[in-house]
């Protein structure tokens, strides 16, 4: 469970997150909102790339914000990036192993854990393939494999389906839906693709201009008048 309380982030005069208070219970939770709503900023706070002005984040009882950024991955925070960041020079296996060797787990189970994670994402290339030779869909799956390896506690997915064709998106949705059960982690999905969010998330929160405007069961949230107004800009 992630408890966010009064989280505020300012960049100069811009308030990117405005006293956001929200609890993510379990499973896969959606986080949506128009461009500039503060979704990625929220992820950057959780990853430690952005220091909030005020507020606290408690993750499974631990004060997340007091941890150094690289230690958070060791503790169990994983993320994917809006612009995919699979390491081109390394093989699929090494991309995933890289996360495992900096996790809490020892080297004895590394090979099996890494291959498990790769298998879980259903990447249909040999693990020793260099990422440079892969297409966008495969690279996204490599990022997801990195996010699920080594007992994660919190998996942050930042627009994982951006730029993917429909067929690959539906495969990705299937993988994302399986994350909580496979890893025991809480997953938070940020995406613009409402069909992906509806397909993956039981609950969804909506941000607009840094403020939380709705949260609850996904179907109800997507019918919410405020949410429709924020997305479509209707007065």
């Amino acid at each position: 469970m992630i408890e966010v309380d009064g989280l505020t982030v300012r960049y100069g005069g811009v308030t990117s997150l405005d006293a956001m208070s929200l609890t993510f219970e379990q499973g896969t939770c959606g986080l949506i909102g128009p461009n500039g709503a503060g979704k990625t900023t929220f992820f950057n706070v959780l990853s430690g790339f952005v220091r909030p002005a005020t507020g606290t984040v408690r993750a499974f009882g631990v004060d997340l914000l007091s941890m150094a950024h690289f230690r958070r991955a060791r503790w169990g925070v994983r993320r994917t990036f809006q612009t995919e960041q699979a390491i081109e020079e390394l093989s699929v296996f090494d991309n995933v192993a890289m996360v495992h060797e900096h996790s809490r787990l020892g080297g004895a189970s590394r090979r099996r854990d890494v291959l498990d994670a790769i298998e879980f994402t259903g990447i249909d290339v040999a693990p020793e393939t260099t990422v440079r030779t892969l297409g966008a869909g495969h690279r996204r799956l490599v990022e997801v494999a990195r996010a699920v390896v080594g007992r994660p506690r919190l998996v942050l997915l930042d627009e994982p389906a951006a730029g993917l064709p429909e067929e690959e998106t539906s495969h990705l949705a299937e993988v994302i839906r399986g994350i909580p059960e496979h890893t025991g982690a809480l997953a938070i999905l940020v995406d613009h693709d409402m069909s992906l969010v509806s397909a993956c998330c039981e609950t969804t929160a909506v941000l607009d201009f840094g403020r939380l405007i709705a949260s609850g069961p996904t179907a109800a949230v997507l019918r919410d008048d405020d949410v429709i107004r924020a997305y479509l800009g209707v007065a």
Partner: protein
Amino acid sequence: MRATLERASPARISRRPTRPQLIRWAVTAVLLLFVLFALPQLMSLYYVDTMTQVAVYSMVTLALGLLVGRVGLVSLGQVAVLAIGAWAAARLLFATSQPYPLVLLEAGLITMVAGLLIGLPALRLRGLYLALITLMLAGAITVVLATVNFPNGGHGFTGYNGSLVHIPPIRRPSIAASDPAYFRYSVVVAILMFALVFAHIKTKPGRAWAAIRQSEPAALAAGINTWFYKLWAFALASFITGVAGGVLAGAVHYLYSIGFPTQDSITLLAVTLMGGVYSLWGAVVAALLYQFLPALLNNWGVSADWLIILFGVGVLQVLTTAPAGLADQVPKDLARLGRFLRGRLKPRSIPETPESTK
């Protein structure tokens, strides 16, 4: 995608080297045996000395390539780091009777500590600013070395003997007193340093460096302590350059501070980029460009100063058309040439007629 899942199963991934890998290992082994045993017999002493310098500078370009290519840190102070290594080794060789390998190890470690002291504050910067800081530090070190003079066998810590005559030479290992023997010794040391880097890039630090070079946020999100791994790269590069300095001290017998001009660091970076920073072979190509090519031109009576122009053009060419350097481009071009020649030599096939397809 699910249908082909078994591809990722443990049984499918083998640890045995592939055929191309085996061929590469075999070619490397044959080449090394040739360099170690045949090459000194075939060359005049002039070229033996030159190739010893190539072995020394291949370690320097190896270290610089590690920083630039693997971690993305541009250092313009490598010649000063080399000078520190040479200084430390020379001092230890004069002051003690320790075996040579131990002196090389100590020179490497002393240089590593010096490199870390430089690296600690410098690593807070990156890109152009890091390059600038390392260049200025190199300048400062050169000034210090010029002021206090290189140890040349006199007494005391700086060990300077101002008499200009009767200066004892820096000793060599007893097993490698002659020039060809010392060349072999240098190559063996270089092989060890290449193996050290190879072991790094194929394991945990190598993966961490690859992540840092491509994206620091991705590296941090993977749990990599980027500061620590950058410092590690700096330490390793300094260690290797320090060892190279130790080998250089024995190779030249006499060290002078004018032998380590600051601007040479810039030329070193240029040849390292030309050789190729993403492959270990690039370091060898870079050292050949840096030491062998000038010696060749000198032998032919052409001024080696022309090389500065050539290196300028070379770097421009590398940065615009072949970012992986000559070590990557030449094999590709040769393969292309091979395909072209095969295409030319093959007898022209007769155009198919409707009858022939019957």
